[in-house]
């Protein structure tokens, strides 16, 4: 839908706008029509593009030292496919490889875990493309941010999923409060604290939050009831993503949290990798939700 606006219309995403103008993008797709569409979309975002239908030529450019911030690679191509090309690009430029996004129409899930690259399914809507680029480039500002949870505790700030999120920690336990703040701080987040459910709700009245890390057991008003009130009061496009934190590893605990309206669940003691994964899921969930609402014409107020 052409909204009749000359400049690129940023999608109604919750990820903070990031400067896209002037970024250099490598587009590789053997289909000329796709290349033309991508080029047009990226130009509207103010990005500088260079395109080719040949993986080999793309690799030549990269090896010759041409600077790219981002590489948009079609997956199904003759010769090197998108994934392999992405890997080759990274290998060619270990220190300053562009961020890689692979576009694929099939086998999306099957190749998802193949490498630490972003995937987009074709056909790509401009808003989805915009969001994916913003997310990928934002992730890149934190050094090679692997957002996937690994078995090991990632080394501190490396895991920063540098999506700007306003986070509220609702937790009454002083020890766990301190630890949660510290882990978030190491990911680059300065979170606010609420000592119980009532305080959490007043905090939400004063300020917009993207994510609430909600302890389940709290005095005054527990996390379950606080969540029910939040859900009753704020619509899906307005309220924060609520992630339960609970020390009860009991059956049915998770279901209880979800039934109350929470979006996700962390068991305590919280670990960096699990926390990072939950925040990453929150970012994805919020992006999907805002896209859904935008589609229905119910933009967040």
């Amino acid at each position, binding site marked *: 839908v052409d909204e009749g606006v000359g400049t690129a219309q940023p999608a109604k995403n919750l990820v903070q706008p990031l400067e896209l103008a002037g970024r250099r993008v490598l587009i590789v797709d053997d289909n000329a029509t796709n290349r033309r569409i991508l080029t047009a979309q990226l130009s509207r975002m103010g990005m500088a593009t260079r395109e080719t239908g040949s993986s080999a030529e793309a690799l030549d450019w990269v090896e010759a030292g041409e600077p790219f911030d981002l590489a948009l690679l079609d997956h199904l191509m003759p010769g090197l496919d998108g994934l392999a090309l992405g890997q080759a690009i990274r290998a060619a430029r270990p220190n300053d490889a562009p961020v890689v996004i692979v576009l694929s129409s099939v086998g999306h899930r099957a190749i998802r875990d193949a490498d630490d690259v972003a995937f987009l399914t074709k056909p790509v809507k401009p808003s989805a493309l915009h969001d994916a680029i913003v997310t990928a480039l934002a992730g890149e500002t934190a050094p090679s941010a692997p957002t996937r949870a690994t078995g090991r505790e990632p*080394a501190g700030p490396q895991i920063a999923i540098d999506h700007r999120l306003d986070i509220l920690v609702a937790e009454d*336990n*002083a*020890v766990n409060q301190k630890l949660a703040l510290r882990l978030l701080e190491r990911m680059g987040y300065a979170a606010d604290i609420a000592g119980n459910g009532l305080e959490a709700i007043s905090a939400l009245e004063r300020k917009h939050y993207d994510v609430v890390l909600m302890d389940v*057991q709290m005095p005054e008003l527990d996390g379950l009831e606080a969540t029910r009130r939040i859900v009753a009061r704020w619509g899906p496009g307005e309220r924060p993503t609520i992630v339960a934190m609970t020390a009860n590893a009991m059956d049915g605990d998770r279901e209880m949290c979800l039934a109350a309206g929470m979006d996700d669940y962390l068991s305590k*003691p919280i670990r960096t990798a699990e926390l990072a994964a939950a925040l990453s899921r929150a970012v994805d969930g919020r992006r999907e939700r805002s896209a859904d609402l935008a589609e229905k014409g119910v933009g967040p107020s």
Partner: protein
Amino acid sequence: VTGDAALDAATIVQLFEAVGSDPDFLDELAAAYLADAPEQLAAARAAIAAGSAEDLVRPAHTLKSSSATLGAQGLAGLARELELGARAGSLDGADAALTAAEAEFARVEAALAERRRSGWTSSAS
């Protein structure tokens, strides 16, 4: 035997790395714990003396949760036992479990002090 240690060594190592290998921060975290845990034990004692399972739930839960955070698994286990009983409305065995928790807390306190002296990096506990 690790089961005898008041603090789980692996948890401490993991915690130390997770907070950025910052001994000062762990000092702070331990201090918050050492200030709070006796209050929870006292509140639990008062709840049992008053015969109130309901009032026992929160202090037992809090003690369980922060003890687990610092790797005090034995104490966390005792607190969990207290919490589960209290949630079921029962104080059966609560007195004995709390007495054991109080004794275990003394061991945890000593172990934390030892960790603190060693800068949180020694492998002994």
